[in-house]
């Protein structure tokens, strides 16, 4: 049987077809991801190209407003950049940071959770206390501290160049305990099962038991957690950028766009801050709704009323 045929008979596909919210959020998500990936082809202007920015075009409202222009569908910001293009490029950066941070979190957290849960004892105690300590203070505090130090060391202008990997590292390292705890909890349940004993009797080494026998059994909570964590990471990035600690304004993410328009909201130029805000909400909401759907599918015991 081919993989496609197996998928079409699966419970996942069956419940997906019947869940309108899941279908809608997947469609929205695919649309947003595609426009982020193909941003250079889709966006009408290149917001990184100073040649295309004219300060005379600044603060033009969206096309449907009275003073709006056909040239700039969603208006322009205070520098005269086309909002639509800037938002598409901004979302591209937000998604890159979100996915990168989650990959890092998942890699660290899953590995630590698997080995700590399986071996128990001192190793387990050390890593889980480290996780407790890390969760006990806010990641924002750490991020503010680190980015202040980094900006002082490399200078504000160079900080812009290394902002993306910096944000991935900060958000990735701050959230690994989420994965470690989830994975450890399922490993504790799995390692007492007889198939693990059977694998040990069959002469498997313990890394092999952990990776080839136990790991596949912990995949469904990992998958559900990942969707929620991507949404969280995008939000964290937006929060940091809004505070001025993330992406610089010449390469804005959604958070720094919201921040840049914030000063103009009372002077009537609401679109600079509201439109990226709406895009951020739609992006995070559709990821979260899809995560909810996955959680319901993988845990049929949770009935919705």
């Amino acid at each position, binding site marked *: 049987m081919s993989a496609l045929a197996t998928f079409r008979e699966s419970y996942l596909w069956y419940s997906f077809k019947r869940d309108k919210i899941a279908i809608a959020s997947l469609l929205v998500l695919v649309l947003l991801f595609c426009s982020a990936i193909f941003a250079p082809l889709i966006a009408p202007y290149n917001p990184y190209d100073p040649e295309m920015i004219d300060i005379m075009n600044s603060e033009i409202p969206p096309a449907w407003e009275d003073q709006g222009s056909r040239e700039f569908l969603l208006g322009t910001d205070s520098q005269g950049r086309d909002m639509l293009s800037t938002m598409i490029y901004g979302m591209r950066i937000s998604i890159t940071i979100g996915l990168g941070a989650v990959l890092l979190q998942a890699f660290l957290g899953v590995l630590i959770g698997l080995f700590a849960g399986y071996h128990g004892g001192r190793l387990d105690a050390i890593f889980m206390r480290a996780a407790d300590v890390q969760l006990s203070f806010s990641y924002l505090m750490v991020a503010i501290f680190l980015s202040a130090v980094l900006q002082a060391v490399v200078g504000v202008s160079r900080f812009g160049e290394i902002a993306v990997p910096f944000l991935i590292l900060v958000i990735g390292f701050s959230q690994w305990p989420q994965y470690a705890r989830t994975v450890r909890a399922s490993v504790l349940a799995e390692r007492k099962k007889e198939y693990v004993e059977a694998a040990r009797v*069959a002469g498997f080494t313990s890394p092999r038991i952990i990776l080839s026998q136990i790991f596949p059994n912990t995949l469904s909570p990992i998958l559900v957690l990942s969707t929620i964590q991507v949404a969280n990471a995008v939000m964290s990035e937006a929060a940091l950028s809004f505070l001025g600690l993330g992406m610089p304004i010449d390469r804005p993410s959604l958070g720094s766009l919201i921040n840049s328009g914030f000063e103009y909201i009372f002077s009537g130029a609401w679109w600079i801050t509201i439109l990226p805000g709406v895009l951020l909400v739609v992006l995070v909401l559709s990821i979260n709704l899809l995560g909810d759907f996955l959680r319901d599918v993988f845990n049929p015991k949770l009935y919705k009323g």
Partner: protein
Amino acid sequence: MSSILNCIRADDVMATLLEVKDLVVKFALRGGDVTATNGVSFDLARGERLGLVGESGAGKSVTGFSIINLISQPGYIASGSVNFHGENLATMSAARLRTIRGNRISMIFQDPMMTLNPVLTIGTQMIETLMAHNLQMCKERARGIALEKLRKVHIPSPERRLEQYPHEFSGGMRQRIIIAIALLTDPELIIADEPTTALDVTIQAEIMDLLIELCETEGMGMILMLDTCRCRSGNWTLAVMYLRRTGY
């Protein structure tokens, strides 16, 4: 030193496969040590079948696990020896032990519902087992061996079955698959810990017949642990375990 020499001589003369001598297994608990087996002894020649019969709690399973030196914490082998081809498994290094465990000695468990990994196809599990013991093994060859063993335990259309998950099999079929997995590495000894207890009576008979048939065709030794004597056929040596000791 003299005991090793004795064993080698015995190996030549009687082809002794396994010799368990005065095995004492204890569990270190907070209130002091609890003795699980207290002086278990038996010999097994090549291709010989031994039935280890005893009531529940007599120490059969602990004996089985201590033969492959895999008693879970806080259990430990307090004294006695388990000689496999004259080598004492009780004092062997972990790496050397792994080349014997699951390779030259296989084990079959009581409950076939639990011993297969629920999220992997049986093909994956069989191939994984083969590759764990032989790093040079390629996937195609492992698949071939898996198919051959499934045929040996009379699984119909094994090519299709290899792609299926454990929940798609009945209890009797699963126990056959577990036996096939135990056979993968052509072991010299199979330890079967109440392999039929979780099955219904007609399937029990089928599985027993299959085990005896396999032992005869493959020339394997077998230690079978049961709570009742109900074997109908085959040549058996019988040891009775009672109050943590063996007697013939």
